[in-house]
């Protein structure tokens, strides 16, 4: 029981080379699937333990905290781990056919191995209690993500991967500088240690220069990683040209983990008082978040590649999460954290629809959707429900987080912000409707090339996610409870 936190990372990390060693291609998929389901199972147990008994601290290799690396799992970590491993498990179930079609057979095993390494990195970020370890896991997940994106069928995937590599490395290096400056100031890398020592730094009227510089580097680096509005340029290309399965996985997990890092660094290490009152992170995040919601949604309306449209919509949705953080209130934080979960559910489902359509028609341009409402009824129905959740229609998961966010803005008295959130939802209605209209009301005019419903192995995980969207839209008690408790922990500086 005590080793759960370590096992979580070790399972995918050990199964990755196993995938490579096996000569049998289906075997690679089987191992990867089993590994992800195992991590999902572990994350469920972990979440349960943390909810019932409070945070778990695990010393790697038995070395106590200031010397060794310790894993610290509080409710926020458990929540993020649950999202990441859950999405990974469903993605792998979905992957079998899609990957067979989109990835060259000789690189199949490498593909699954990379996917597992990426998963291990993302889980590691959420679980570790050591600042430098976060950087290492971040690079593990990013490097495998670059390679995965580069495996896309079209040659533009390579360019997208290279662009992401450049921007991702700059972001990660900024984070590295930030961590280095924090270390020079405090002499420790353990997150809890860091927090207590940063708190002891005397604050003059101008603040401590090293601390401010560290904050600046960390914020910019993390914003690059989470694709905050002006720093989002790598995201649309990467999501559009990556293989379908990679897009599903990264869209639902990678940016969420970056948001988690932002929360961890600003609330648990630098401290809410310093970050929000002295350096006004709230104001720094507010404008980019609002710009993301408006501009990215507007741009999404004019996209003809629907995968690209959803990528822009992702940028807008990240705007909602950072907006929740910028409110600097308990309700705002809960909304932001809950939206991480709900966004993973809806974007996972929507990108799975893209994967299924790409599997049957070969591409996902708007014109490919003509008449699909009749030819792929289940897939398009999933798109409709996922789209409803994206807009935030009541009885879907998307509604809950937007509702709490709206309440939080009203609580803060930010009327214009409330209006912008609603406007963003309206824009979502427009871009989702374009696709729905084409699918249901435009007949296929060219010669029909026998498009039929997607295979069951794709429909099943897709509908599990849609089911989750609806279930958590009606009974949201579990994720909401976790998000609220995570927000409480963050507001108190991560000490609970």
């Amino acid at each position: 029981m005590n080793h759960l936190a370590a096992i979580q990372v070790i399972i995918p990390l050990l199964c990755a080379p196993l995938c490579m060693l096996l000569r049998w291609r289906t075997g690679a998929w089987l191992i990867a699937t089993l590994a992800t389901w195992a991590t999902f199972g572990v994350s469920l147990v972990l979440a349960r333990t943390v909810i019932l008994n409070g945070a778990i601290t695990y010393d790697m290799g038995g070395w106590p905290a200031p010397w060794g690396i310790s894993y610290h799992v509080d409710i926020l970590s458990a929540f993020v781990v649950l999202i990441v491993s859950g999405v990974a498990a469903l993605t792998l179930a979905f992957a079998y056919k899609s990957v067979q079609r989109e990835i060259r057979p000789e690189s199949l095993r490498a593909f699954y191995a990379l996917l597992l390494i990426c998963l291990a990195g993302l889980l590691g970020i959420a679980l570790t209690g050591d600042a430098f370890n976060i950087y290492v896991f971040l690079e593990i997940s990013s490097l495998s993500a670059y390679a995965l994106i580069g495996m896309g069928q079209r040659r533009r995937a390579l360019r997208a991967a290279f662009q992401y590599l450049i921007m991702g490395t700059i972001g990660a290096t900024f984070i590295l500088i930030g961590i280095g400056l924090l270390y020079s100031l405090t002499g420790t890398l353990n997150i809890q240690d860091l927090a207590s020592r940063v708190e002891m730094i005397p604050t003059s009227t101008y603040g401590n220069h090293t601390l401010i510089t560290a904050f600046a580097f960390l914020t910019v680096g993390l914003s690059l990683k989470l694709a905050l509005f002006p720093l989002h340029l790598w995201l649309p290309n990467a999501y559009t040209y990556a293989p379908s399965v990679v897009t599903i996985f990264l869209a639902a997990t990678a940016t969420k983990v970056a948001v988690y890092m932002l929360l961890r660094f600003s609330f648990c290490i630098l401290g809410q008082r310093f970050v929000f009152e002295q350096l006004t992170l709230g104001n720094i995040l507010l404008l980019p978040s609002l710009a993301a919601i408006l501009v990215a949604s507007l741009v999404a309306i004019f996209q003809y590649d629907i995968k690209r449209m959803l990528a822009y919509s992702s940028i807008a949705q990240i705007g909602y999460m950072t907006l929740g953080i910028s409110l600097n209130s308990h309700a705002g934080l809960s909304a932001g954290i809950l939206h991480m979960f709900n966004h993973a559910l809806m974007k996972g489902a929507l990108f799975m629809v893209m994967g299924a359509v790409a599997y049957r028609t070969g591409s996902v341009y708007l014109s490919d959707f003509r008449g699909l409402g009749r030819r792929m009824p289940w897939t398009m129905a999933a798109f409709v429900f996922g789209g409803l959740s994206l807009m935030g229609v009541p009885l879907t998961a998307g509604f809950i987080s937007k509702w709490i966010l709206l309440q939080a803005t009203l609580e803060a008295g930010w009327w214009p912000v409330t209006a912008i959130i609603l406007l963003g939802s309206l824009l979502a209605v427009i871009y989702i409707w374009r696709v729905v209209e084409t699918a249901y009301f435009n007949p296929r005019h060219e010669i029909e090339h026998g498009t039929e419903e997607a295979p069951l192995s794709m429909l099943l995980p897709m509908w599990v996610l849609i089911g989750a969207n609806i279930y958590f839209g009606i009974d949201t008690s579990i994720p909401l409870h976790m998000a609220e408790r995570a927000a409480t922990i963050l507001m108190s500086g991560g000490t609970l």
Partner: protein
Amino acid sequence: MNIGAHYNYWVAIFLMMTGFYVVITHGNLIKKLIGLNLFTTSVFILYISLAKVKGGTAPIIAPGIEVYSNPLPHVLILTAIVVGVATTAVGLALVLLIYDRYGTIEEDEIRLKDDSL
């Protein structure tokens, strides 16, 4: 404050800005990677500089010596160097593949080829 006393930090900043400038301005993908390498290497120097303790020697226990430099940043930077090597390797692999499929590694020409489709 004596500005010259911390010249190693100035070196780090200079290298970092040079690397950053190269990444932004150059269209050749290999040159971009070289710039990226300069950029990350500057951080190594920053970390090593942080480790220096005034009057301290190499962190090896020896009789008569009481002040040592901090060895931890050195260890951290070993990890960061490995990460840098891996990044460069992935980057170069991507450049090779790009050259394979586009026939060029100049960003402008790649963009032209993509747009002309």
